């Protein structure tokens, strides 16, 4: 969903140099051709899609609507490839977005394709990476998850109010488990010297990294880190007979299921180690 007032932001690990977009995290270069270079230059300079299209149409003396359509499709492709972030501006854009989402829900009975956002990850230590992941998940994602979670937990609280502290621990732990899972991937990727970045799309978040031979541990690291923490938490809970601690350990342990083919990590793990099928 592209709006003509949208502006383009290049993440700090993506550069537009010469006639190509360079993904510094993944070590890839994407050459641009012809008017794509001109369009990219205008968008990278801060023009909105509509303004850039108007400028290009005047420069090449062609139909502005065709240029708008091409440039919007170009920006959409770059956004899908997680090379740029699109930024809406103004209350009108916000209103249009709400209307679009509402129409999509009414007509198609599902959420519209979510706009993804890329967050570069620092090359510092494990704590710096974890802090970055935590800031994105905690600030951008957690409120939405809690919004979905609270209606499910309220009935449980009505029937078993004594479980309030345990359910609160469970809710907080759900967020913490995602931070540890994605942080585990990012730290493992950096340890073996491959670049990575964080992507948020709708209610989902994931670390994207280079996928080359020998990256099996990177796929396994997220679920395993959660499993170790969850098992430790549960052992402590059994020792102290603490119900909130036991509930808090559950989301961490459930992340172990990501090692199976039910999840992308498990499938990539099979592929990363395999290749003999």
């Amino acid at each position, binding site marked *: 969903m592209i709006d003509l007032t949208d502006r383009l932001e290049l993440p700090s690990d993506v550069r537009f140099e010469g006639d190509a977009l360079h993904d510094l995290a993944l070590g890839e270069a994407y050459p641009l051709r012809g008017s794509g270079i001109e369009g990219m230059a205008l968008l990278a300079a801060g023009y909105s899609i509509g303004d850039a299209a108007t400028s290009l149409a005047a420069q090449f003396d062609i139909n502005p609507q065709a240029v708008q359509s091409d440039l919007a499709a170009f920006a959409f492709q770059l956004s899908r490839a997680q090379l740029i972030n699109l930024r809406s501006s103004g209350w009108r854009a916000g209103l249009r977005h709400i209307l679009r989402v509402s129409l999509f829900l009414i007509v198609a009975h599902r959420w519209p394709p979510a706009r993804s956002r890329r967050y570069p990850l620092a090359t510092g230590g494990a704590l710096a990476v974890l802090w970055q992941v935590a800031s994105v998940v905690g600030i951008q994602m957690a409120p939405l998850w809690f919004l979905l979670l609270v209606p499910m937990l309220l009935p449980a609280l009505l029937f078993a109010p004594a479980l309030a502290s345990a359910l609160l621990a469970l809710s907080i732990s759900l967020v913490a488990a995602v931070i540890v899972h994605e942080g585990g991937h990012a730290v493992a990727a950096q340890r073996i010297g491959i670049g990575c970045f964080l992507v948020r799309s709708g209610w989902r978040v994931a670390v994207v990294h280079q996928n080359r031979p020998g990256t099996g541990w990177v796929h396994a690291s997220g679920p395993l880190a959660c499993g170790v923490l969850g098992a430790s938490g549960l052992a402590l809970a*059994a020792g102290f007979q603490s119900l909130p601690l036991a509930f808090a350990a559950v989301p961490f342990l459930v992340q172990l*299921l990501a090692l199976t*083919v039910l999840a992308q990590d498990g499938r990539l793990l099979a592929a990363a180690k*395999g290749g003999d099928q």
Partner: protein
Amino acid sequence: MTFLRASLIGALTILVLEIALAFLLNVVGESQHWGNAQLGIGPLPIYTLSRIGGNFAVKTGPGIIVVAVAVGILNGLGARWLSRSTPLT
């Protein structure tokens, strides 16, 4: 090899989760004052919950091995099917 590897990973994962579930049942059962019970597949026990005196205990049965192996095989079959239908990359 993909089948064997995925089966092993799946079985180990489920085994760890089943053991973890035993700890969880122990904590919950103790705090909620549960009585005696047995969870299993037919005659094959997975968990045996018992309260002897004031202490609540959870014992795992041979069923956890059966469940882990079954899920492991399913995971292996799933990995093989996925690797044939779509490249696992």
